[in-house]
């Protein structure tokens, strides 16, 4: 039973076309939140994803949130870095202008740090969704 299900799943995966879009859409979506949907003509979804993820990230910065770097510190720093990295272009731009480097000195700044991590994690979900649309698994 389990074997037949596995075989069916593998067969279904083999049927799904691996177009260039299935690589480009997630890559563009990672760089600019929602862009992976927009290039596949899901205009409203892409716009809402862009607004939501960007707003969370920018609000986090305005709340004096801290942004993590790939410095290989303790495990929580590494997890924070992975979350932040999901924000793609915004993360790169933030590092480029040297923002988000302050110490977390009050509660709101801690919320801001979490806002930016969650923005990155939500963008990972949006990237996966863009990929599923590109391979035809979702409309």
């Amino acid at each position: 039973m389990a074997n037949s299900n596995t075989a069916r799943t593998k067969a279904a995966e083999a049927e799904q076309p691996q177009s260039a879009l299935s690589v480009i859409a997630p890559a563009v979506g990672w760089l600019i939140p929602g862009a992976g949907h927009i290039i596949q003509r899901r205009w409203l979804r892409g716009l809402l994803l862009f607004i939501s993820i960007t707003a969370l990230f920018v609000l986090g910065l305005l709340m004096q949130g801290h942004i993590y770097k790939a410095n290989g510190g303790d495990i929580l720093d590494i997890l924070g870095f992975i979350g932040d990295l999901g924000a793609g272009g915004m993360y790169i731009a933030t590092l480029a202008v040297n923002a988000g480097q302050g110490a977390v000195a009050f509660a709101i700044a801690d919320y801001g740090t979490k806002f930016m991590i969650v923005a990155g994690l939500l963008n990972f979900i949006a990237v996966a969704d863009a990929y599923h649309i590109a391979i035809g698994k979702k409309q």
Partner: protein
Amino acid sequence: MTLHLTHFSAAFVFALFASIVFGITHRETARDMVRYGLYCFVMFLGGVLVAGWAMWLIRR
């Protein structure tokens, strides 16, 4: 420039944007997306209120 949000307004903003993303990415049709987004929003804010009152009761 520093933005100062209250705990509740921060939770509200967080719930709003996270719910929009969850709704879009976890459901297939537009109607289901809206319904699931609203469900997530209510659960987020409901959870905040329940946790807040629970902490208030524990503190007393």
